């Protein structure tokens, strides 16, 4: 029995309908990306001096972007791996949309480190002379492994759908048909194949869950392993991880809402999904608040001199505007929105999710910069200051444009809702179709 999914036509429709709007979007995103590339080449030729970085603020928005993009990437793994392990079957329609965020934000996270380096062409030194005593090596290893396994995980779960495109999309250009044929790796839709695929995905999901925890903890250790005030706390790992999952899940809400609107996927991406995400988000925001209070109360109560310099800078000094905006506007407001307005209202939820992501970027910034402006020897002398310069702004915009570009492109060539995972029947499987159709083993039972 072949795959039957009553939404198949709805899901495949975006692939058949590439229009003028798409070319315009891709074109303008490409322009932004090229501007960023230009800025990077300029920076490579001139030196990092063209950025706003200085001494003691040796790290600026590039490192902020690194942390942010890796955090965003946690969305996919959270939705598809952790929820798969937990047997949450409602996640099936969103898995691919979420995983695509993972896949397409990781390169910009990893790339940000490269952009930040004074000698990017010496990157291979990490292999020739790499030593595992350094948190940078932990990062390179963890992020590398994460990228690799995300690609494999994503590709494997895409395989049956590529084969479906190959078999059923007969009206697309020839090169596209050939692409599906090559990428499908001769997938035959046999029950045996599905059985094995699901087994592999289940196994990988456990591995990916562990990886997700490791990766963002290790990212935070870039800061936590130093003795600098504000960074040197054991909480920084869990705090970063929770922030990552929060911003990632919020990003999924934004992506889903856009997909649903632009590609008319209302039937598949029904309100129920958003309501489930809403509950998760409320939990994460509360968890985030808990960590926030635990962290700052511990520091403030003990009032060690150099820690207080950084803390005061955030609470009432140079960075107070960013700090309080971040907490109030971007966490309290979304929390209120989710609780009182969010239910069954996708518009409000998207608004709150956008706020969360702006807030999470600010949060990364506020963790990194104030500590740098007040290192021990400097705060005696008034401290340092930092403002991003034009190249940094251009490159940051380019990274975000790149993420959207890859995402938009992907959704026009591959089904963004997993057809096989939401199918009523699969070869060799009996299926229950309602309410959220999923394959029986994908529920993890």
């Amino acid at each position, binding site marked *: 029995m072949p795959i039957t999914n009553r939404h198949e036509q709805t899901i495949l429709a975006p692939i058949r309908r590439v229009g003028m709007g798409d070319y315009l979007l891709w074109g303008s995103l490409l322009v932004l990306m090229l501007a960023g590339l230009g800025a990077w080449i300029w920076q490579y030729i001139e030196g990092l001096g063209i950025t706003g970085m200085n001494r*003691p603020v040796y790290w600026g928005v590039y490192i902020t972007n690194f942390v942010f993009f890796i955090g965003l990437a946690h969305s996919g793994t959270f939705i598809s791996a952790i929820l798969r392990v937990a047997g949450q079957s409602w996640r099936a329609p969103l898995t691919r949309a979420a995983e695509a965020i993972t896949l397409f934000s990781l390169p910009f996270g990893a790339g940000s480190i490269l952009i930040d380096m004074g000698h990017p062409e010496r*990157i291979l030194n990490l292999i020739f*002379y790499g030593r595992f005593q350094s948190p940078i090596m932990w990062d390179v290893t963890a992020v590398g492994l994460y990228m690799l396994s995300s690609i494999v995980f994503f590709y494997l779960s895409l395989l049956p759908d590529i084969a479906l495109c190959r078999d059923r999309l007969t009206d697309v250009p020839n090169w596209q048909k050939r692409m599906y044929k090559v990428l499908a790796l001769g997938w035959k839709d046999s029950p045996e194949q599905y059985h094995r695929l699901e087994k592999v995905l289940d196994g990988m999901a456990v591995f990916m869950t562990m990886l997700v925890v490791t990766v963002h903890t290790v990212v935070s250790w870039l800061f936590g392993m130093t003795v600098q005030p504000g960074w040197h706390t054991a909480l920084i790992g869990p705090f970063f991880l929770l922030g990552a999952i929060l911003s990632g899940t919020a990003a999924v809400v934004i992506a889903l809402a856009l997909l649903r609107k632009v590609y008319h996927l209302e039937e598949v991406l029904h309100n129920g999904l958003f309501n489930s995400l809403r509950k998760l988000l409320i939990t994460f925001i509360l968890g985030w608040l808990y960590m926030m209070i635990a962290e700052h109360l511990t520091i403030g109560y003990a009032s060690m001199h150099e820690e207080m310099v950084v803390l005061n800078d955030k609470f009432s000094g140079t960075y107070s505007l960013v700090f309080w905006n971040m907490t109030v506007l971007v966490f309290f407001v979304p929390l209120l929105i989710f609780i009182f307005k969010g239910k069954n209202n996708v518009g409000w939820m998207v608004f709150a999710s956008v706020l969360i992501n702006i807030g999470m970027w600010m949060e990364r910034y506020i963790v990194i910069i104030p500590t740098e402006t007040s290192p021990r020897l400097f705060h005696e002398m008034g401290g340092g200051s930092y403002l991003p310069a034009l190249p940094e702004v251009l490159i940051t915009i380019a990274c975000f444009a790149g993420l959207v570009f890859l995402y938009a492109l992907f959704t026009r060539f591959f089904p963004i809702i997993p057809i096989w995972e939401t199918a009523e029947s699969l070869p060799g499987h009996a299926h229950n179709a309602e309410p959220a159709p999923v394959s029986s083993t994908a529920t993890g039972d």
Partner: protein
Amino acid sequence: MPRWGMVIDLDKCFACQSCTAACRMENNTPVAGQDQAEMGRAILWNEVLPFVEGEYPNIVETMIPRPCMHCDNPACIKVCPVQATFKNEEGVVLVDYDRCIGCRLCTVACPYTVRYFNWYQPEWPEALKEHLNPEPEVKPRPKGVVEKCTFCTQRLRKAREEAEAAGRVFNATDYIPACVQTCTGHARYFGDLDDPNSLVSKLAHSPRAFRLFEELGTQPKVYYLKQG
């Protein structure tokens, strides 16, 4: 093998900055220019920093000359991913400019903020260019790498070579860094901390001796003698 260390007597230092100037000439640190210096990008392996305690008008100001502390347990070395910064067998912390990838993790990790990054290709006005120190250890660094005080490692090599040429045994007192040689107030002492009879080792054990941020466990090899 000597374990090189420095002692700075804050009673004798009158913040004339000769050490800073001597260091620049000895080690070819580039001229940053006013705008870059204001951004905090000047490269000064040695600085004389003012520490102010108390509220105006009851303040006590201490001027603290600050080279690299050449920590025995250096925060910078731990974090370097490619071992571009390392401690040699004589306890001096050095940077391999050909290997450094410019990640700047060491610069944020050093609690003394003594590591400097080359934001641009280093530059000198023509007049200064002719007077650059020709020693290979201090040849101009490329942009994009980190640099810092080396206790004038080139001087150590030269002192050893001279001793060998003269056919005598190298003695720890044969070598001092440029800042120590120049110091107008004779506030700086340099030598082998492991030799109990050396002046530095005696001074380092004086009741006036302290080290910066001793509580961090970095074990600096630069000691200060308390003022007053």
